[in-house]
């Protein structure tokens, strides 16, 4: 068992936690402002697809990454308008976006690349395997600082806890929420880009495989706080890394079926959420559209 816990496992954990951290920090902005964002999965998919396609065409991962940020923000804008302007149910809106983004990339890649399964391979010199990791881990203290030390963060938290109070103090609730949801789209977009042009070299159908939801679980497990959320993401990344290492490992002469190993991160997600969700207090106005009296 000893060779299991080696440096490799540590790197693997960090790599696997990176997209989770990016998406979870994005979700944090949105949710601390009071808008539920279960669309993280869809936003990551948008980022992943856009990054792979644009990098392929432009021949530059930086253009691809920038496009992924824009794509995430654009899709998040839909969520923002539906939830803030039209005060629709935020879970329903998020779900709709997730469903849209399971189909849209296949349709688009069918149209552009004549293959609905995946985008063309991006050459290796155009991949960015390390930059998103640096961005993700640098964003953790930065997010903490923004939330706790800047006027923007104070207003954001106030809007998520008690929008009436923020309004009475002259803070525009809707403007804060739009900004927050757009930021969440941008960050989830980077997370998605890392999947397609960092860890891999092309976009494949549904390549996020639930990472948006795991990021959301990490956000809740981390009590909507940056450092704790990062730790939660590392935990989930670690289980995924373990799952990968365990593949092909023999246990008492029998090989452990792959399916059992692959479910580990998901089972952990459920266990963690069932066990900890009650102890973690969500922003008080989370999920409630702000209705200004007139």
């Amino acid at each position: 068992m000893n060779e299991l816990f080696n440096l490799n496992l540590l790197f693997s954990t960090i790599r696997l936690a990176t997209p989770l951290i990016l998406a979870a920090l994005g979700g944090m902005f949105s949710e601390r402002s009071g808008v539920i964002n279960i669309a993280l999965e869809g936003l990551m998919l948008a980022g992943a697809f856009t990054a792979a396609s644009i990098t392929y065409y432009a021949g530059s991962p930086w253009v691809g990454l920038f496009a992924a940020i824009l794509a995430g923000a654009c899709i998040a804008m839909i969520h923002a308008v539906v939830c803030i302007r039209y005060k629709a149910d935020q879970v329903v809106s998020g779900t709709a976006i997730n469903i849209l983004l399971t189909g849209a990339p296949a349709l688009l890649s069918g149209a552009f690349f004549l293959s609905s399964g995946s985008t063309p391979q991006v050459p290796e010199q155009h991949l960015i395997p390390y930059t998103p990791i640096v961005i993700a881990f640098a964003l953790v203290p930065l997010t903490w600082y923004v939330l706790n030390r800047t006027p923007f963060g104070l207003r954001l938290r106030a809007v998520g806890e008690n929008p009436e109070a923020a309004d009475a103090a002259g803070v525009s609730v809707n403007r804060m929420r739009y900004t927050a949801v757009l930021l969440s789209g941008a960050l989830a977009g980077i997370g998605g880009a890392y999947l397609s042009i960092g860890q891999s070299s092309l976009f494949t159908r549904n390549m996020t495989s639930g990472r948006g939801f795991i990021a959301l679980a990490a956000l809740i497990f981390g009590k909507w706080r940056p450092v704790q959320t990062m730790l939660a993401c590392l935990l989930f990344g670690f289980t995924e890394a373990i799952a990968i290492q365990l593949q092909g490992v023999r246990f008492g002469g029998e090989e452990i079926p792959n399916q059992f190993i692959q479910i580990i991160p998901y089972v952990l997600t459920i266990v963690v959420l069932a066990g900890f969700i009650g102890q973690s207090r969500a922003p008080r106005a989370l999920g409630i559209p702000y209705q200004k009296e007139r």
Partner: protein
Amino acid sequence: MLELREITKRFGDVLANDHINIRVEPGTIHAIVGENGAGKSTAMRIAYGFYTADSGEIIVDGEPRRIETPHDAIALGIGMVHQHFMLVDTMSVAENIVLGAEPGSAASIDLRKAAQEIRALSDEFRLSVDPNALVQDLSVGQQQRVELLKALYRHARLLILDEPTAVLTPQEVEEFFAILRRMREQGKTVIIITHKLSEVLAISDDVTVMRDGRVVGRLKTAETDAAELARMMVGRDVLLRVEKPDARPGGAVLSVKGLSVTAGGERGVRDVSFDVRAGEIVGVAGVEGNGQTELIEALAGLVTPSQMGGAVELGGRDITRASARERYELGIAHVPEDRHRRGLLLDFDLAENSILGVHYRKPAVSFGPLLDLAGIRDRALEIIRDFDVRPANPDLPARALSGGNQQKLIIGREFELRPKLLLVSQPTRGVDIGAIEFIHRKLVRLRDEGCAILLVSAELEEVTSLADRLLVIYHGRIVGEVDPKRTSQEEIGLMMTGGRKGNAE
């Protein structure tokens, strides 16, 4: 300082403000009185930019101004403290105060500077607020002072206070009024919205009286009295004192023996014994948070038996461990202190609310497991008629009613049970004076029909005028029993704060 001219505001079919004119002189405390729904809060919310008026003018310091958002109002030196505090519980006092007007740069709030300024303001008006405390750890009175600081921090010269005393204990009200007087001395102007006449007389220089969306008069406080103000507010003569014949008590209905309640932690009830006899009202006087809530909830069966000690008997029968439903069936009715938390389902209609407590039996259920909708409606209509609930429409959600009418519905529902014992807590909190008179008369009549009533109220005047016997509670103990007719308010007030023991039982 501030003048509203011919302001009109309509919400759907309701004319909330009908060409109202209010003028407030600088450096004065101006009271705006009226019953709930008279349009006082609407007018002030217009002045603060929460609502925009349909027509009319707002004049600040002699000049017509447009006030479309709270931001505009703040810029003109107008601050408002809302009835429901506009505070973020999870943030610190300083963070709440600077929110929206943060000192420092966009990259960093200068909280140290903010804390200094807040301390200076707090000292100037003797508010004793710690800028670093979390709002959720503060008492209601302290939270209110944070709201005041919020306005002062933004250099408000005019403070609008919406029902500021509704949440305060009598002691806190005194302190609060002292603060307001200090503000007046410093040149601030204060508008206080209230429906408590004693407060108008105690604190204000001028009064504007509103009724049904109109201004019906403006008076100098020194030249008026409670009876005149009440008549203007309600539109008819109002009995401000309770008239009741002497009680003719029968045998003990409720016997409480050495009751202790540990729920509520520090507060709770400690070794309390008393009886309530048929045909009498026993009042419990005390500063809020001295165990009244726990006492009533324990008697109503809302406290887990493991958190109680001692014994409770109803008509000689031990009910210490009986559930809330069993108690209802034995003839205990309960008018809870917080009608929104325990008394009503706000989104349910009046008919549905009228059967809470009997929802499992007649008249709510008459055939197998099915609700008897016609029976429920009839019962609701009966309560609405007998207790003058307005609007008289059983299909309206409880939320649509004013506080007074919600309370009348609850009282009607509990009275309909023909209880042997009524537990009633804060029966007239947030209720108009017209409805207060009505509720007091109903309570006296129920007593005269032979019901035993245990009454808890934070309004000392209410308990002393209604109760036949008065128990004073302090730190969970009954520190004395007095005859309310022969004891002065000051004496009772002193006992309530642990000052002196009365003739203990």
